[in-house]
């Protein structure tokens, strides 16, 4: 169609750490050795948690569980950019985020064992209950950001979700409001390229997810989601931009769901092991390990110590979780409303 150009848009992509462990120094965020070790340790902790959760599920000690395998960089890299006063709205596959923020590990397990009490986030951090209904928590994040701004609190709100969530109306309506009101919110999509059996191209014809932000008047950026430094940098910048009044940012972390969708799924029905193998070679932990190795950070049995510590931390959490007495029937009632109505009171008493 021959005519004038009304506007031109670009979408950018950020990678810092390559697969050999080398970084682009110009882009590398300033991180102390301690901070880098913390990243690594959290990634190992997350992976250890994940393995254990899957094992527990197989033994019937947890219910259906969604693995975070392969998404550790996206989760830890971004969560480390948060302040303690920030608010987080997770979907259901961000256990790495919760672990980074110091969510009690046994409560995560408790939740996946089918016990709502696991959803009680610690008082010193605002993490909303995990949202199972894909994408529906996005407007909540927007509302919290609106409230924070109204209160003049220096709070940034972060919402996490998957590629599949970008198809939901809630995604669109929430993004649109974030744009209109220029809210302090950062949207982090873990594009793991699958929504159960539906690959990305079955989810959208958009070449990238990041470009979806163009329709809402704020910036979208694609980040190598298996590169913890790139994720961290993008998240830090977006969070600081939001905090200083610059409005919303959409970060697409391009990664891969290495495991089945959940323990109830069998991914071999719909995707080839070859595809998975390609991504195994891009493992985010391996990449960070190579980087650390090049800098001599893995000496003195550091990797083994880290893994051992992670294992014992998770062991401890499993024990704590399993020692929790099962919920009482009254539990089911007591959080329905502040004050139960007469009928509920009767029902609570078994009537």
């Amino acid at each position, binding site marked *: 169609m021959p005519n004038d150009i009304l506007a031109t848009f670009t979408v950018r992509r950020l990678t810092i750490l390559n697969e050999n462990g080398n970084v682009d120094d110009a882009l590398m965020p300033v991180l102390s050795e301690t901070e880098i070790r913390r990243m690594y340790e959290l990634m190992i902790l997350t992976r250890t948690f994940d393995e254990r959760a899957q094992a527990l599920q197989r033994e019937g000690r947890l219910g259906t569980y969604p693995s975070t395998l392969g998404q550790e960089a996206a989760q830890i890299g971004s969560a480390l950019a948060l302040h303690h006063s920030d*608010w987080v*709205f997770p979907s259901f596959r961000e256990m790495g985020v919760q672990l980074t923020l110091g969510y009690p590990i046994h409560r995560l397990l408790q939740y996946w064992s089918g016990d*709502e*009490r696991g*959803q*009680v*986030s610690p008082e010193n951090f605002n993490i*909303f*209950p995990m949202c199972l*209904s894909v994408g*529906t*928590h*996005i*407007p*909540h*994040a*927007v*509302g*919290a*950001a*609106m*409230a*924070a*701004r*109204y*209160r003049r609190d220096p709070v940034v*709100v972060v919402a996490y979700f998957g590629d599949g969530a970008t198809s939901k*109306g*809630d995604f669109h*309506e*929430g993004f*649109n*409001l974030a744009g*209109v*009101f220029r809210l302090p919110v950062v949207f982090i999509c873990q594009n793991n390229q699958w929504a159960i059996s539906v690959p990305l191209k079955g989810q959208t014809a958009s070449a990238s997810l990041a470009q979806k932000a163009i329709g809402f008047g704020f910036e979208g950026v694609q980040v190598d989601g298996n590169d913890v430094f790139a994720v961290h940098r993008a998240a830090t910048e977006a969070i600081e931009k939001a905090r200083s009044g610059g409005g919303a940012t959409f970060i697409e972390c391009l990664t891969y769901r290495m495991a089945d969708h959940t323990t109830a799924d069998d991914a071999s029905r719909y995707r080839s092991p070859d595809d998975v193998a390609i991504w195994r070679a891009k493992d985010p932990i391996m990449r960070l390990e190579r980087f650390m190795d090049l800098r001599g950070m893995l000496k003195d049995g550091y990797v083994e110590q880290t893994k051992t510590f992670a294992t014992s931390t998770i062991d401890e959490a499993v024990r704590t979780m399993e020692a929790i007495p099962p919920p009482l029937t009254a539990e089911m009632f*007591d*959080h*329905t*409303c*502040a004050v139960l*109505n*007469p*009928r*509920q009171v009767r029902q609570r008493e078994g009537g």
Partner: protein
Amino acid sequence: MARINMVQALNMALGSEMKRDDRVVILGEDVGRDGGVFRVTEGFQEQFGSERVIDTPISESAIVGMAIGMAAYGLLPVAEIQFLGFSYAAFDQLFVHAARLRSRSRSRYNCPMVVRTPYGGGIKAPELHEESSEAFFCHMPGIKVVVPSGPYTAKGLLLAAIRDPDPVLFLEPTRLYRLIKEEVPDGEYTIPLGKARVVREGGDLTVIAWGSMLERVMKAVERYNAEVIDLLTLNPFDAVAVLASVKKTGRVVIVHEAPRTCGFGAEIAATVAEQGIMDLRAPILRVTAPDVPVPLSKLFDYYIPSIEQITAAIDEVLRY
């Protein structure tokens, strides 16, 4: 004390609560500059600023969703859905999130919000502007459903709804917005949620209604010895008041504007059939709209219960 209509009473309640408590914020389509399509929020954006009186894009689901986030953060949002017929898009947010936030988070977060919306018919408006689907929302544990029936109850119930620590759906009978004027105190007062009002005492039968049907019921019962109960809150409804009246009269007629099947009348009848059956002398009759989609204005009068239908039901139960 002034004689005012329901729009004015609602405006008064909202205005005084906005002044009293800076956690109260209003959001919805056209609630700001325009003051709401029925002018319930008139003047507020000028008075309280556009951060407290927020004109939103057309996103009913996100209006409720945002309000949930605001409420969880510590504000007291009063969201307006322009007409109940547009609230269905927000059904998911209401049922999955507003109703369950307290439960899902085991009281770590709660959701003290009000969703106000014009409700019911009789204003000759286009499609979806005359819905009365209150029963849906009464099947959502965790949400309260309130229906005022005049200026006085509107103000007292709205203040109670805003102060309630849990989500309240506040259904404003559109037909009554400017139909009735009543004396409404200038100061604050609340009407407790969950309590019905006996608006007329009588011994021969009990007629139960709410919202705009009440006005019609009052006309219909003129020549009967009927007790009339205005429920005011549908969920939780005041079963004690209903059962006490049934004990006295032994006969029940329920009147609502919504279609019969699974309308809120079913719950009332079922409750009486469960807890008050020994007092009953006659079948429990429901006078309701038929089980058809809400028609446009040319057929609307055939759709909602007429005075004749109400009196016919009364005559029938009196036959027992």
